[in-house]
């Protein structure tokens, strides 16, 4: 095989050749540092505030964003069942799609003074009553779920919390 890598195309060699020509701009230009900053992931969002304050902030943010929630039960003050109308620009063929997203927001204690707010997708409902019955979908179809509307609403909520705090 005569397949090979062109030596003059290797960045170090190219740079040496360019600097050898003594061009003024060449010395100013540094190589792009391809920092492979591994994205560090966390579950939900963390908080060190007092638990009741966290819950208060979440209710305030939900209210500002026009979401609604079920009245919390006495024995579980740390879970919020949210229903959030997702206004989408009506699409062309005006098809009726479920527009109420349900979400469960739950406060967990990791350790003393360290809490975590977890967001979970909890299905769709339609504001015009008809619940989309997906009984006949096979196991495979049931798993075609797009997280993007859910992710979008959580970014709205996180922004509201960030801005408020």
């Amino acid at each position, binding site marked *: 095989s005569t*397949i090979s890598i*062109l030596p003059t195309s290797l*960045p170090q060699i190219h740079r040496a050749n360019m600097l050898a020509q003594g*061009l003024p701009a060449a010395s100013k*230009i540094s190589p792009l540092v391809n920092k492979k900053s591994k*994205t560090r992931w966390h579950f939900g969002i963390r908080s060190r505030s007092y638990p009741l304050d966290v819950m208060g902030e979440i209710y305030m943010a939900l209210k500002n964003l026009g979401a609604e929630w079920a009245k919390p039960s006495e024995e579980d003050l740390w879970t919020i069942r949210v229903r959030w109308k997702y206004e989408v620009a009506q699409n062309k063929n005006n098809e009726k799609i479920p527009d109420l997203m349900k979400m469960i927001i739950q406060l967990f204690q990791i350790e003393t003074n360290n809490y975590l707010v977890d967001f979970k997708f909890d*299905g769709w409902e339609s504001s015009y009553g008809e619940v989309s019955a997906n009984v006949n979908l096979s196991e495979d*179809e049931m798993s*075609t779920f797009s997280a993007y509307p859910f992710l979008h609403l959580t970014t709205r909520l996180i922004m509201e919390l960030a801005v408020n705090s």
Partner: protein
Amino acid sequence: EKIIVEQKLAVESIRAFLKSKTSYDVLPVSYRLIVLDTSLLVKKSLNVLLQNNIVSAPLWDAKTSRFAGLLTSSDFINVIQYYFSNPDKFELVDKLQLDGLKDIERAIGVEPPDTASIHPSRPLYEACIRMMDSTSRRIPLIDQDEDTHREIVVSVLTQYRILKFVALNCRETHFLRRPIGELNIITKNNVASCRMTTPVIDVIQLLSQGNVASIPIVDHEGTLINVYEAVDVLGLIKGGIYNDLSLSVGEALMRRSDDFEGVYTCTERDKLSTIMDNIRKSRVHRFFVTDDSGKLVGVLTLSDLLKYILLGE
């Protein structure tokens, strides 16, 4: 004669393989899909691509809750060209959001990219044909959310990923032993090229006008020295150098990060089996064909390779 027959049979069986598999089969068991909200600033989206070491990403429009096409290096080339013709519009370019890229396309009069898409359970062969017709090098796999019937981008398949899948799964690639010079698949005529001193903006125009992803750099004797690729534009913008577009392409190439693997070359005597071997082992996106003294003869792109496997022989 034996080699010719063997190659013909091998191509047919690879084609049958592509018809027997679906795009879904190419997907790893677990993978990431990075999507950008269309209200993101273009310059922020550049950070996201570079941070994740990717060159393209699907866009999602939260207002319509739909997918809004793919962000690719062509979009950044359009922004550079727009800025070059409107240097006073720095403010607008700096504040440009991803949903403003369509206006940029119209302002510089380029055709919007025709992004064909396909359902993940369709045969892989069909995805390849669709990609070839749409002259794009990648194709989004779109399914429907069972509740909202909204589109889901399951993944985006590229020519590279498909050829790698074939190279890894089809033993028949070892029987492709005819020299590539005999197969009439090398692009030889009117391959746009430039010199090391050519202004980088002229090279960017060549990329855009020719709708190609790379421009070879040759010396006064036609010897291949380097290549400027469309993805290099991301580094150019990142460095904010695009407001100094008088840079030569040689100077602009100084932006390349040190982990760039280099330009792959071959000759007309090389066989497809060795080409596929290289695709199996490394991240190679094209092969520049040179003669024995290193003079540029032409280029063998992944599109040329895929077209031969799908329709050749």
